[in-house]
């Protein structure tokens, strides 16, 4: 197992704050805390290379730094990347986290260590395994053995770590699948007995708290308004040209309705897999009301209908994807001078 270790200028023995602009340097073998860590790893793994980079340099030139480190990873081809420990050093923690995200994108695991309140944990916890440390480098003598233990476990388990508490890293705020000893129905009845008896039990899924979007203030007049249409009902041009998924959508579509007054069986259909599609395939206006809005446009009830519509499939699509699509669509509507949008769901 070959490890690439990322450390900052201070632990790389280049100096303190005055050396924080130190650019990326690649050296062979372990440096600073890497030496002790390497010894603890024994035969399990070896730190073959170390990247030293100034904290200010990384954070002020993030794109350049990330590209440089990506090149080094390509060249060194490590089996595992270790970053830090960063304790409560904010810029160092953020850099370690960002290196973890890069590693994850390149299909390599990153193990780091930091204080839970380090912003690097909050920003990047989903893309690295982070060992909890205290808030200062005085904790080095505990942090390193903990990181070494996690690396050893990682190797022993063939790269598949168990749950945070079991293997000693901080929660990543990810939902992870596993097989339980008892089937779901038996666990439900056990939980029911505990809840009835007033005994303690742990829910398997803490219900989320939703953010609420305040409705926009009402339009003063519809006569001058440009109205947009957005749907999660999966209406697409016939043949679904961008292959929007029938469930768990990974994209949304932007399609022209310029000169279109009616959606028909010949022109449009739904890509949505979660409802009876027969009616929508016969007449997609029932989900995306182009016909009615064209009438209103002709009558002068609304100013105009925006000549593009936005569409995705809501079926099984994660909230994280939905949020991303929503923000992009909203920006496009704003840029096009759309005054209000009608959102239809199914």
């Amino acid at each position, binding site marked *: 197992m070959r490890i690439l270790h990322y450390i900052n200028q201070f632990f790389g023995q280049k100096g303190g704050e005055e050396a924080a602009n130190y650019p990326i340097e690649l050296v062979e073998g372990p440096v600073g805390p890497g030496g002790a860590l390497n010894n603890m790893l024994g035969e399990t793994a070896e730190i073959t290379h170390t990247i030293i980079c100034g904290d200010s340099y990384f954070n002020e030139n993030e794109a350049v730094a990330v590209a440089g480190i990506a090149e080094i990873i390509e060249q060194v081809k490590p089996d595992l990347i270790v970053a830090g420990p960063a304790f409560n050093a904010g810029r160092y923690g953020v850099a370690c986290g960002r290196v973890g995200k890069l590693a994850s994108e390149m299909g390599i695991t990153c193990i780091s260590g930091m204080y839970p309140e380090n912003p690097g944990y909050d920003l990047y916890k*989903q893309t690295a395994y982070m060992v909890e440390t205290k808030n200062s480098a005085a904790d080095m003598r505990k942090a390193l053995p903990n990181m070494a233990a996690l690396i050893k476990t990682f190797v022993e388990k063939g790269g598949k770590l168990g*749950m*945070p508490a079991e293997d000693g890293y901080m*929660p*990543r*705020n*990810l*939902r*992870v*699948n*596993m*097989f*339980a*000893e*008892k*089937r*779901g*129905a*038996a*666990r*439900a*009845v056990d*939980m*029911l*007995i505990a*809840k*009835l008896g007033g005994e303690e*039990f742990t*829910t*398997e*899924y*803490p*219900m*989320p*708290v*939703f953010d609420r979007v305040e409705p926009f203030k009402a339009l003063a007049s519809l006569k001058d308004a440009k109205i947009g249409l957005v749907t999660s009902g999966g209406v697409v041009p016939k043949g679904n040209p961008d*292959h929007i*998924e*029938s*469930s*768990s959508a*990974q994209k949304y579509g932007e399609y022209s309705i310029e000169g279109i007054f009616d959606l028909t069986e010949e022109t449009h259909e739904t890509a949505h*897999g*979660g*409802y*009876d*599609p*027969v009616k929508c395939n016969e007449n997609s206006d029932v989900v995306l009301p182009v016909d009615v809005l064209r009438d209103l446009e002709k009558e002068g009830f609304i100013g105009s209908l925006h000549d593009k519509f936005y569409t995705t499939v*809501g*079926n*099984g*699509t*994660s*909230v*994280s*994807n939905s949020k991303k699509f929503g923000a992009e669509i909203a920006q496009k509507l704003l840029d096009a001078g759309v005054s209000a949008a009608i959102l239809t769901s199914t």
Partner: protein
Amino acid sequence: MKLEVGNIHVKELAFGNATALACGENGAHRVEIDKEAIIGFIREIDHRITEVKLDIALPGEATRIMPVKDVIEPRVKVEGKGHMFPGRNAGENDIVGEGRTHVLKGMAVMTTGKVVGFQEGIIDMSGPGAEYTPFSSTLNLVITCEVEESCNQYEHEQILRTVGLETARKIGEIAKTAEADEVNTYETKPLLEQAAQYPDLPKVGYVYMLQSQGLLHDTYLYGVDVKNIVPTLLYPTEVMDGAIFSGNCVSACDKNPSLVHQNSPVIHELYEHHGKKYNFMGVIVTNENVTLADKERSSNWVTKLAVQQGWDAAVVSEEGFGNPDADLVMNCNKLEAAGIKTVLLTDEYAGNQGESQSLADSTPKGDAVISNGNANMIIDLPAMERLIGHDTYVDMIAGGTEGSLRADGSISIEIQAITGATNELGFHNLTARQG
């Protein structure tokens, strides 16, 4: 209502000269299927059937079955009124759930074919996908059935549904005179007697939510499409005789094949501690319709019926996700507001990496939730030596994306596409945790 369920443990399944229960290796039960006779039987079910093929798929084989429409367990009434999967045929309207029923345990009848478009399930009999489906460990008789092109989607679904149920029932008949390897007895008394039997124990029940969102999202209760019911009461044993059966398979991970209803897991687990930890009073079946008015009406009725029976607590299971999350949350809020404690069973759509929140609706009252896994997890399914059914739709099925099916026959897909992977009746062991 009292039902004895006699299990005949089937260890071998093969084609033979007659459809019969035979003696296999070391005296084990062996089911033999007269292929031509069963094909003839199926062809007689509906004249619009154009093609029927029978295959046997056994655990450990390099076999992929897809798209899977339904999975059904062969059972037969030995004593007592009624017919398996009642309410469909003339003269079959008796109430079931009483007397004695025999089960060919360990085998299943599956239906496949070009199923109404693009959304159905995968069952791998070996490899990484096999772990995620409970039906990789059953001995499967697979019916590939095609129909005339003139059939619309509703007719097509109905024909395949009937083929599965009738064939399982036909094969179940061979268990009628067999000696059962084990017999389990389940009993729930009429309401007042049941309440009086364990007066000091808390009263609990089961809220059984059934898919009713439309084509390929429908479920049937005594032959009635449950989108047309108001919530009603059942004796738990009725489901063991097929009172509830499936008409859905879309996003196959969390739809209940008929076999899961026949072996309804929450009902069986509630019977385990009945009379010891609580008094299991019965079942409320309800639907998951798509309009707000229907959701409000059904959740109001669920709570009314639970209060009427004096329940102290309930297990509530969902079927499906997204839109039915709203039904789950309404049922939870209204039951808890009526002083009835709830435990909810659901699954999660947390994104491919598990990075997202998992449900489309939420309530702080839902403090006791069983998770049956994250359906968005991606799995790599290697190519198999044998394919039963069709794999041409993989890119388009729920859980698939462009390029899911590779040229070599391997598939990269969300476990959403695997039949039973995140079953929300808690039939299987998959779960998700904060990691």
